[in-house]
């Protein structure tokens, strides 16, 4: 059998990056949540906020740890599998990715320790400041990463000299045309993720009647955020889509499953796109709706996939369906936000077991939506690695064989499966311990214990311990 290093490298990158992405998207939102709890605790002196903060800081510590581990692998992927790409873009990507590392280290060195372990050692105001700085730091980190990704989508401020891009304008390169939209979309996604996880976990505690007062407050705050964020995300997503329409029309055509550039294009609710025959099967559609959404005019023109040759079209089926999954989950979030509002008006949002169980399930949806969204934007750029400038095939490591790529693909799957099942298992233990365990003074090991993220969580690894 002929193993294709290109396909295998793409699968490997997708696997590693998907695995990695779910952690930061959660920690970015959670850091702000914790800063919020700390602020409320500082201002109101109501002890429930500190109770909540202590618990969610433990969750943060574990998820942050897993994010760092999976992120280290990411930074080597570029060199091992995509060396031509790395070399060509190093003048931009090198400094940008390094600045992300610098931000993360600075954050960890200066503030994370104070946030995780300093509560009883520093004044409350200093602790609050550390919480705010950690939250800020996570955004600065994501600034660099999203600037790097956006540059691949909408390159700007670069000039190609002898096979290497040189940065002509750092401002144009960092703040390239799609950056602001992508950053806003991801920031909201992070907040939504944190809101839905906090809502889901609090709902689960409420079903069990645990720490009712604190968890009720947490659920209330999370639902208010959901009510604001979910519809806002729809609007921002729409703007992001319009930006994509302007700069990457073929991606939008794939999202809409639209083959011919035409006016008054219908919105497809269901279809089986068939790239080989350049058509769709089993279409279920709303007439003229796609034109209206994309151009805000019922007869507006929507670009078609056939504007570019077939070898420059992305895998339409994947982009088309990933987009629908993302939008459907987004609408579901809006639905739950409104449902929560109605229950609140009736005063019963924390008593309806049906609603609370629904929220438990909803805590998984932001992760799926984020992954679906990234699949849309990354797969939708194919075959381009740098849009209209370098294809995936051109960016690949020349010396890479299919066998090598398969070896590491299987290797990373095994490593991640082992390591992250342990991590997730432990995270679930922290959840089970709940606010009660996080707020109980734990017996300190008599050995001086290191101050690292995981140490902030006190749960034992196996059942029935401690």
């Amino acid at each position: 059998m002929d193993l294709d290093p290109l396909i295998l490298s793409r699968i490997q990158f997708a696997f590693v990056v998907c695995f990695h992405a779910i952690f930061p998207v959660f920690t970015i939102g959670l850091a702000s949540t914790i800063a919020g709890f700390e602020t409320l605790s500082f201002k109101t002196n109501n002890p429930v906020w500190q109770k909540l903060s202590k618990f969610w800081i433990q969750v943060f510590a574990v998820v942050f740890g897993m994010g760092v581990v999976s992120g280290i692998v990411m930074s080597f992927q570029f060199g091992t599998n995509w060396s031509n790409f790395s070399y060509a873009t190093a003048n931009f990507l090198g400094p940008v990715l390094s600045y992300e590392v610098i931000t993360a280290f600075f954050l960890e060195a200066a503030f994370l320790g104070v946030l995780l372990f300093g509560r009883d050692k520093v004044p409350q105001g200093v602790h609050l400041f550390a919480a705010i700085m950690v939250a800020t730091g996570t955004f600065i980190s994501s600034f660099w990463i999203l600037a790097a990704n956006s540059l691949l989508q909408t390159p700007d401020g670069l000039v190609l000299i002898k096979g290497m891009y040189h940065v002509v304008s750092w401002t144009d390169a960092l703040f390239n045309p799609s950056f602001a939209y992508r950053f806003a979309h991801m920031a909201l996604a992070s907040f939504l993720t944190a809101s839905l996880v906090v809502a889901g976990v609090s709902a689960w505690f409420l079903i069990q009647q645990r720490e009712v007062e604190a968890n009720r407050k947490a659920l209330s705050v999370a639902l208010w955020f959901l009510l604001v964020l979910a519809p806002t995300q729809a609007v921002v997503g729409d703007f992001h889509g319009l930006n994509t329409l302007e700069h990457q029309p073929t991606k939008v055509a794939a999202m809409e499953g639209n083959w011919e550039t035409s006016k008054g294009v219908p919105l497809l609710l269901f279809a089986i796109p068939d790239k080989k025959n350049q058509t769709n099967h089993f279409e279920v559609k709303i007439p003229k709706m796609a034109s209206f959404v994309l151009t805000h005019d019922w007869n507006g023109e929507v670009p078609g996939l056939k504007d570019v040759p077939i070898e420059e079209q992305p895998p339409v089926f994947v982009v088309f369906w990933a987009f629908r999954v993302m939008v459907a989950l987004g609408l579901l979030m809006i639905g739950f936000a409104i449902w929560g509002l109605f229950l609140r008006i009736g005063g019963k949002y924390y008593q309806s077991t049906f609603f609370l169980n629904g929220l438990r399930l909803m805590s998984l949806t932001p992760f799926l939506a984020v992954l679906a969204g990234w699949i849309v934007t990354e797969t939708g750029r194919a075959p381009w690695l740098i849009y209209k400038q370098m294809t995936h095939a051109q960016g690949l490591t020349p010396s890479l064989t299919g066998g090598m790529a398969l070896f590491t693909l299987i290797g990373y799957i095994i490593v991640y499966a082992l390591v992250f099942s342990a991590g997730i298992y432990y995270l679930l233990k922290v959840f089970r311990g709940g606010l009660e365990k996080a707020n109980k003074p734990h017996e300190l090991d008599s050995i001086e214990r290191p101050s690292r993220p995981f140490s902030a969580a006190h749960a034992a690894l196996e059942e029935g311990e401690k």
Partner: protein
Amino acid sequence: MEQPFDLTLIWAGIIGFGIMMYVLMDGFDLGQGILFPFAPDEHTRDVMMNSVAPVWDGNETWLVLGGAGLLAAFPLVYAVFLPALYIGVFLLLAGLIFRGVAFEFRFKAKTSKYLWNWAFAGGSIVAAFAQGAVVGAYIQGFKTENFVYVGGALDWLTPFTVMTGAGLVAGYALLGSTWLIMKSEGEVQAWAYKLTPRLLAGVLFVFAVVSIYTPYVDPLVKSRWFDSLSLIWALPVLAMYCAFIIFRSVQKRDEGLPFVATMGLFAFSYLGLLASKWPYIVPPNYTIYDAASAPESQLFLLLGFLFVIPIVLAYTAWTYWVFRGKVKSTGYH
């Protein structure tokens, strides 16, 4: 763009310093993992792990900082070494991940503790071996054409690199055992004293082979060392003097000196290697200037590094200060 100072040279200094810091610091904590299977009992393992637990992840900071800095300052190194060492890089990362996770979970485990012991030992040994093989591959040189690696997947894996890999495993174990002498007492310390001379013998053997082999494969190295008696001969002489001090200080049951002298042995060997290969960073074809990124990119990142390196150093110093002294292990159940 004309620069008033040689940015590439500055970056070579920064990266060289970063690698040095990494080797010395992560070396002794990897060493604990390498010695783990040979520890006489579980109590000793507790002491070993506790002696490095507060500092190991700070030590690995230097690896990530160095890796990111390489892509930014010397992209050719990044784009040749990683493809050429593809399988080795995977082993290195997998090893570091396993031992990192073992650090976190061994403390929280009871019945599954033995699993984390194996993860810690296996991960450390694999990671150390992979790093040693990288050094060997650097000495061997890379098959390149037009700034692209054109060799095969396992070109790096030769008897020579297997030996440098094993040599670094022994070297890190030596850093580990002398660190343990400094940080422990009683039976654990006695065990570490016993190990040190044997490990030193292994390291010196590899040192000798590398010293003979390197000028043999690379005519540039040969002429640099043997054409005329130059100042660089001071480096191996100093390294040998350090080895002598390790040996003697262990006999005298000195507690701190063995570790300091081992760091010296590493530092002078490392400088000796650099002196052999300078200015080639992707041997045999490319110098640091061929491998450098654009000056504006080097400058852009230099500002950030100049800001962050003092902070990392200060943070590191502070952590070591807080956890200074012997590891106390009483009452750990």
